[in-house]
């Protein structure tokens, strides 16, 4: 009976349509202005934001939610996560993040592996994440790790929004062994791959010449990169590698995104000049490896001050990256504020800026016409102790129930004296 009810709920969820909703008395961060709109009325209809106006009147027939002065933000956009690609990292059969052996390099396309039923999705969504870049961990052709996909944490159906949204490569001490043991080899291989892709673009052939290192699937996968339509996200942390990434972008006229960037602050002006955005982890402050000796909590603040576009991806020993993505992004953003980043800039780094970096239109803001992905918070969203009270994706209110919440309710202290064991609840 209980299962039947759950099924009915599921069907209802699938059928849910984007009704007209008005959120009143909100402190609305639209991300289109430097300050929030106070006592705002936010109107959503047809899955889009219609308007955000101070003390506006809800349209007739709209469902009205009173935010009671609480903060409303766009749905969070996780600049780099692996949600949908991994369930239990140590159980390899539940882990599709990497293709460490086999022929695939740039052609490793994670979009085929996305698991719409991952329990991690509901957890992230209940913490306010509505969109993300889900990126690959490793591929067999160094220094590439493959292609990432933009996902939307919808309440039903496929989470895949845009496959092959970015190419990823990893440079430095965590991955150099794959390239033969030196980062010099990593850069040489990366430059060679892009050169081979460019030659192929000029004269596509049935088969590559015998001195070519890449095979046809990898060469083809790189075509959008050299055409400038797909960003190349380079994972690099040491200053010398960041300088090299800047040089590569200039030499080849391709779009480069820096991922990691522990020492990026030391090249902030250069990164700003060439408009390379940085996706960083605001919790990276330890000299965790020799590539991170300059890691510091002020990284975000110094980059933003220099005019670099920044977005956040919080690893937390890799546990936060996918399993606690939403809460960790907010904690990271809060720490960045505690270390000098203006509040609005921190909020942008988990909403509008990652959407811009990955070219996700209509996401990350509450501008008129934007997708109605938004969150009402029960406190300051940059305090990780706060939580979402309502989450909308495409104008549809998402359930905040997660597997964790169901376990919580089974074992709540208030039920300690129930006659039947928790298994009956």
């Amino acid at each position, binding site marked *: 009976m209980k299962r039947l009810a759950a099924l009915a709920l599921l069907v209802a969820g699938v059928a849910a349509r984007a009704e007209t909703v008005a959120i009143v008395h909100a402190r609305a961060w639209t991300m289109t202005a430097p300050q929030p709109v106070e006592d705002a009325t936010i109107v959503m209809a047809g899955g889009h934001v219609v308007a955000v106006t101070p003390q506006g009147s809800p349209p007739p027939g709209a469902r009205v939610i009173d935010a009671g002065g609480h903060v409303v933000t766009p749905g969070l956009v996780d600049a780099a996560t692996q949600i949908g690609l991994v369930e*239990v990292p140590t159980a390899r059969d539940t882990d599709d993040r990497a293709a460490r052996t086999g022929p695939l390099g740039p052609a490793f396309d994670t979009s085929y592996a996305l698991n719409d039923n991952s329990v991690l999705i509901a957890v992230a969504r209940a913490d306010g994440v509505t969109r993300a870049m889900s990126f690959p961990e490793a591929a067999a052709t160094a220094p590439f790790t493959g292609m990432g996909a933009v996902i939307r944490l919808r309440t039903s159906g496929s989470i895949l929004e845009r496959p092959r949204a970015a190419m990823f490569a990893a440079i430095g001490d965590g991955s150099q062994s794959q390239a033969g043991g030196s980062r010099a080899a990593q850069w040489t291989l990366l430059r060679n791959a892009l050169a081979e892709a460019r030659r192929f673009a000029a004269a596509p052939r049935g088969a590559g010449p015998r001195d070519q290192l890449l095979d046809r699937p990898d060469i083809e996968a790189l075509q959008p990169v050299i055409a400038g339509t797909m960003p190349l996200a380079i994972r690099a942390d040491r200053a010398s590698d960041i300088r090299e990434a800047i040089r590569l972008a200039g030499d080849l006229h391709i779009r480069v995104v820096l991922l990691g960037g522990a020492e990026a602050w*030391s090249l902030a002006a250069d990164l700003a000049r060439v408009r390379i955005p940085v996706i960083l982890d605001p919790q990276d402050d330890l000299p*965790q*490896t020799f590539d991170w000796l300059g890691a510091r909590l002020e990284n975000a603040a110094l980059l933003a001050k220099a005019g670099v576009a920044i977005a956040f991806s919080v690893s*937390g020993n*890799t546990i936060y990256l996918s*399993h*606690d993505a939403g809460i960790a992004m907010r904690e990271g953003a809060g720490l960045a504020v505690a270390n000098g980043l203006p509040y609005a800039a921190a909020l942008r780094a988990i909403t509008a800026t990652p959407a811009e970096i990955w070219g996700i239109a209509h996401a990350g803001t509450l501008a008129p016409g934007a997708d109605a992905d938004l969150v009402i918070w029960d406190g300051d969203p940059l305090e990780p*102790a706060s939580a979402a009270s309502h989450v909308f994706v495409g104008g549809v209110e998402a359930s905040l129930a997660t597997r964790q919440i169901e376990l919580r309710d089974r074992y*709540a202290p208030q039920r300690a004296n129930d006659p039947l064991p928790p298994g009956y609840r």
Partner: protein
Amino acid sequence: MIRRSLRRAALPLLALLLPLAAAQAQDDDHRGPPGHGGGDRHHHGDDHDGRRDDRRQDQHDATPPWTRDLFPSTYAPLPRADTLIVHATILDGEEHRIDDGELLLRDGKVAGIGHGLPREGARVIDAAGRWVTPGVIDVHSHDGTYVVPLTTIDDKSSDVSELSDPNAAGTWIESAINPQDPGLYRALASGVTTLQVLPGSDPIFGGRSVVLHPIPATTVQAMKVPGAPQGMKMACGENPKGNDAERGKGPTSREGEIAFIRDAFAKADRYRHEWGDYLDGGDHHHPPDDPTMDTLAAVLEGRIAVHMHCYRADEMAVMMDLAKDIGFRIAAFHHAVEGYKIAPMLAANHICAVVWSDWWGYKMEAADGIRENAAFLDAAGTCTMMHSDSPFLGQWLPIEAGKAAASGRRAGLSLPPEHVVAWLTRNPAQALGLADRMGTLAVGKDADVVIWSGDPFSVFTKADTVFVDGAVAYDRHDPRYQPRSDFEVGRLPAARP
């Protein structure tokens, strides 16, 4: 990285409880707390009680080898001045919140708390708008052995655990501590005044722990909290069996781990009796001195309590029964991701729970982690605390507590700051067997104190001033009190502008 971090995540611990005989023997002015007697020892009785052995030793001019402290503390407090903190919001760790309060630190001890305290001879610090708590105690750290920066050398041969055998009980983690680990310096700057370094969780018996003040020093002895009991780390579940299966040595199943533990303690019991007979004068044959058996004998005698890494509720229940049967005391289950499923059982057995706020899902035994774990454990009366397990988290333990408490409040529990602070201070002191000396701001306690820039549970707050035994060990506003490790000296000029 992930493998490394997962291993760390899996380490649980040993609880330390009992006063080390070593402390009694070696430390003349800073004695450990009175002993609890080693838990349920009904199978062993008192005829091999350590103190009685000590008396018998006179006959033979010998002591049981497990009572020695091989590396005695040389800790001395940093230079200090009597200090009066005024206008602070004080959380004393004993359930009180004192607004606009005062705290007097004299001769390294808390000398007064409340209002209208005497100012004579004390440096006065105006803490208006700021909060004061006891120093944070991290019962589960790997600082000094999980030394950053990590390199490929650590991949091959890390000092976190000795992996040559599933029984590494003979190891003392203090013999590996590198005081120049930048993680220790970051812990101090984050308000941590005491931490327990535990061996890792890949061995079933990880070895002896050590309790340190994370103050700048060139030797581990100079960081050792005088008289602090050692603990012994043990581990359940996936980590040891996975490691053993990989190395082809040791138990490859949970049931094998339990049998292994029983076997090891049975041997240790025989070893202890051999020594007892020898010291009694009944047997003139000098027994062998076996470091592994020494540690286990000390555990059986109640001199050392166990800090047990366990995730699943069923495993913790098995370990509790096993501990009763064998006669060893578990001070705490570390990680205890499913602790909330058996919270009243932990409380009834007087075993502490050492948890994160929100880590879950990174391995099968962590699949059922919930954010209300700490709050539910606390509600059942379990001595509950946060822990770091990693140098990055060791910098943000109050934020961890804040997250965990907020989840509990959303689940309907009352968790005011003056209660939650105990998850960082009083409860870990209890798990370490140091509750009579630290963890609260009661008069007479060690003056381990933090002045926070604001509400300590907020992400926007920082440790402003950190006192260890009444001495300023770190001050965010005074460059003279911002120590750096030798590793960080002279590197990357561009990186430290």
